[in-house]
Structures are given as C-alpha cells and as structure tokens.
C-alpha cells in the first residue's frame, strides 16, 4: 500500500484542482492531486476536450484539452504527485492533519485538503451485459495502443474516443468492429471519413447485448435494430466508450456541510471541517456562479488560506508570482 505525505492534498484533477496544485507549489507547499479518472482534466477532458472555451481570462479561445495541458505544465515545476484512476473514498481526521484513502488502496496524509471535485467523480458509463468480463476483455479506456495488438476488437460508442480507438485498432488488431446505437456519429467529420475508408466493420443502430467466453472474453452478441436475431462477433477485447457519468460519490459522506449536493464554504473557501477547503463547481455560497474562471479564483483563495492555516507566520498574501523563482523549492521525490 502506497502512502503519500504532503502539505496540501487536492481532491479532483479538473482545471480548478490543477490550478490549485500550481498555487500550492508557488506557496512552497508540497502537493498531491487525486482523481478517479486515469488522466488529468476532469469534466473538461472527459466531456469536451475538443470544444473551444471562450471565457478563460486572457485567452480569447482555448480548446479544453489545451487548457488542461497548459495547467499541467504550469503546475509541473512544483512536481505535484498525481494519484490518478483512484477515487478518494474516505476522509479521516488524524490529530491536526487529515487522511484520505482511495479505491486503489493509496493513503494520502495532508495538513490541508482542498476539494475541487466538480460535479463529482467522473466514471465511464458501464456496459452491464459484459460487466463480468471487466479487465478480462472489457475495458473502458485504451490506455496504450499496444493492448490492441492481434486482438479481435469490438468498440462500442459513437464519439471521438470510440472513433479514435477504432482507427488505431484497424492498424493493430486482427479484426475491428465498431458498434454504435445510432446512425450518426458524434465525432469529428474527418474521423468519420477515415473510418468509412478503413477496413473497420461498422454496425449501426446496434447494441452489444451479450458477452461470452469461458476464461476471458471470446465473443459478443450484437443486436441490430430491425434485424432478425443477433449477430455473433468474435471479440477478445471489448472497449466500451459510452461516455461518462458524474456523481458526487463518497465526498457526500465526509461530514461536510452540503447544500443541494454542493459543499458550503465561507469567503475564505473554508468548509465546516478545519483545514478542509473547497473550490470550483463543488463549492457553494450565496451568489455562486459556476464557471472555470470563478473556480480559478476560488482555488487561489482556498490554497492561500490553506497556506496561512498551515504556517500562520507566513500570512495569507502569496506575493507577486513575477517576483518568484519558478524552480520548486520543496519538490517531492517520487
């Protein structure tokens, strides 16, 4: 079991959490960031990586994924420890400090916790008929393209992830089938065109309705709307790219004062638990506006107040970033 001990733990690696990681580093604090998704970026990466965002201060237009990449780069000099693909499950008081445990068995001990959980943990929409093959043939992500090599791949979904993975699979897998429950894809026109020109077998108006195989997965049953009976498709790797769902999840049981599933904070971003702060879409107060732009300000407030909470002698004001050396003074070794 891994344990990390840091000054500040940030729960949620969306834009606001990433900016909080930068700010903690800038304040000379060691920082860890935990997120249920296997990548940084939260809702932005999961739902609209390719959409332009027009209301980030100083950026007339920025693609979601580019914003996330910029935030990761901005925090990088301070070496935040990322604990990704693990959901923060419990928050327990340890004297003056806090301990968070994750679904992956990691223990995180911190002097302050900043919760930037957005609308909650982002998790892939499940494919219940094949759930018994999870990690034995069923996957919700393609973390590395070499997992496709030589497999009979079936990809379910009609968005950009599904098409990108299908196009990659055609180059590497033995067979590739794309199953989508509608006629229209929700992906880039260019990807759709590449798909049509590829050797990928495409089943539209279709759903995977059963999965079979003795040890691992070997075959799925696909039901096409209007057809007589299902089709059997050889399948050793089933990738369900059906989008995401978000739920506040375990945070709701951490003893925080909530209002309509958001965490109530004061003007210093403090929650009702001492040393626990919240910022971004998950926090609320009178007059709250849920925007990334607002979240950036809130998390700067949260982290600076956390810094003052940890080191009362250094005070609340961070000083000017333009005066500071960017080099991390307290970088954590892995």
């Amino acid at each position, binding site marked *: 079991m891994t344990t990390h001990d840091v000054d500040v733990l940030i729960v949620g690696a969306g834009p606001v959490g990433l900016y909080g990681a930068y700010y903690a580093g800038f304040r000379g604090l060691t920082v860890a960031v935990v997120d249920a998704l296997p990548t940084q970026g939260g809702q932005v990466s999961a*739902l609209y990586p390719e*959409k332009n965002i027009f209301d980030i201060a100083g950026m007339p237009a920025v693609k979601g994924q580019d914003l996330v990449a910029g935030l990761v780069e901005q925090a990088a000099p301070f070496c935040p420890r990322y604990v990704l693909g693990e959901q923060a499950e419990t928050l327990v008081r340890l004297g003056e400090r806090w301990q968070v445990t994750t679904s992956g068995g990691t223990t995180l001990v911190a002097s302050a916790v900043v919760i930037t959980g957005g*609308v909650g943990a982002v998790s892939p929409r499940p494919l219940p008929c094949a759930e018994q093959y999870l990690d034995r043939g069923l996957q919700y992500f393609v973390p590395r393209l070499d997992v496709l090599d030589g497999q009979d791949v079936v990809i379910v979904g009609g968005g950009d992830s599904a098409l990108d993975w299908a196009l990659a699979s055609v180059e590497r897998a033995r067979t590739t089938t794309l199953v989508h429950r509608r006629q229209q894809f929700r992906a880039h026109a260019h990807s759709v065109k590449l798909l049509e020109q590829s050797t990928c077998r495409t089943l539209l108006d279709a759903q995977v309705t059963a999965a079979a195989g003795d040890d691992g997965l070997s075959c799925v049953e696909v039901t096409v709307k209007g057809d007589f009976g299902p089709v059997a498709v050889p399948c050793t790797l089933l990738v369900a790219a059906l989008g995401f769902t978000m739920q506040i999840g375990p945070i709701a049981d951490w003893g925080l004062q909530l209002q*309509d599933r958001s965490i109530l904070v004061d003007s210093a971003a403090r929650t009702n638990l001492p040393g626990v702060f919240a910022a971004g*879409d998950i926090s609320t107060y009178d007059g709250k506006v849920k925007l990334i732009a607002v979240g950036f300000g809130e998390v700067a407030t949260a982290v600076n107040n956390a810094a003052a909470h940890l080191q009362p002698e250094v005070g609340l004001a961070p000083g000017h970033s333009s005066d500071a050396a960017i080099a991390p003074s307290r970088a954590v070794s892995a």
Partner: protein
Amino acid sequence: MSFVIGAPCVDVMDKSCIEECPVDCIYEGSRMLYIHPTECIDCGACEPVCPVEAIRPMQRLAEEWKPFQEASRELFARVGSPGGSTKVTTLEDPHLVTEFEKED
C-alpha cells in the same frame, strides 16, 4: 446556463437524451421530458441525440421554446433539486404541457 426541451418532445419522449446525460438531470413528465435548469452542467451531450431536435441551448432559444422554458422553471421551482431523475418518479406536467395541443 442549461438546455431547454420544447414542443417537439411532447408525446414523443424518445429518451435518448436521458441515456446520454452524464448528470442524470433530464426528468420525465407524462407528456414530455424536462431538463433541470440548475443541475444541467451545459455539456451539450443531449442536443445532438434528440431524434426530433427538441433540445436547444438556453442562449439560442427560439420564441416557441420560451414558454416551455418558463414551464420547466415553474416545475422545478415546485420540485426543487432532487439530484438525479432516477431518484424520483414521473413528474406532474405543468399546465402549459397538459393543455398543449400538438400540431400534426
């Protein structure tokens, strides 16, 4: 921010949008579906999947959608924020919708 469902949904209720919504904020009435104006995170996943093009973003609302926006606001002022349509049963349609006469 949020999306609004208009007249094309009345008596259709295909529900593809419900499958798509990542935050489960699309609620069922007897005659149509309703998007919760504050639970909606404005991701836009529902809009393209509606087979009758009933879903429009609030910022680009045609005149015909506006009474439905108002009706939906009234409905959720009454219902509050249940935090997910799977947590409640069918909602009672607002007056505008119960009385709505669908043109064929």
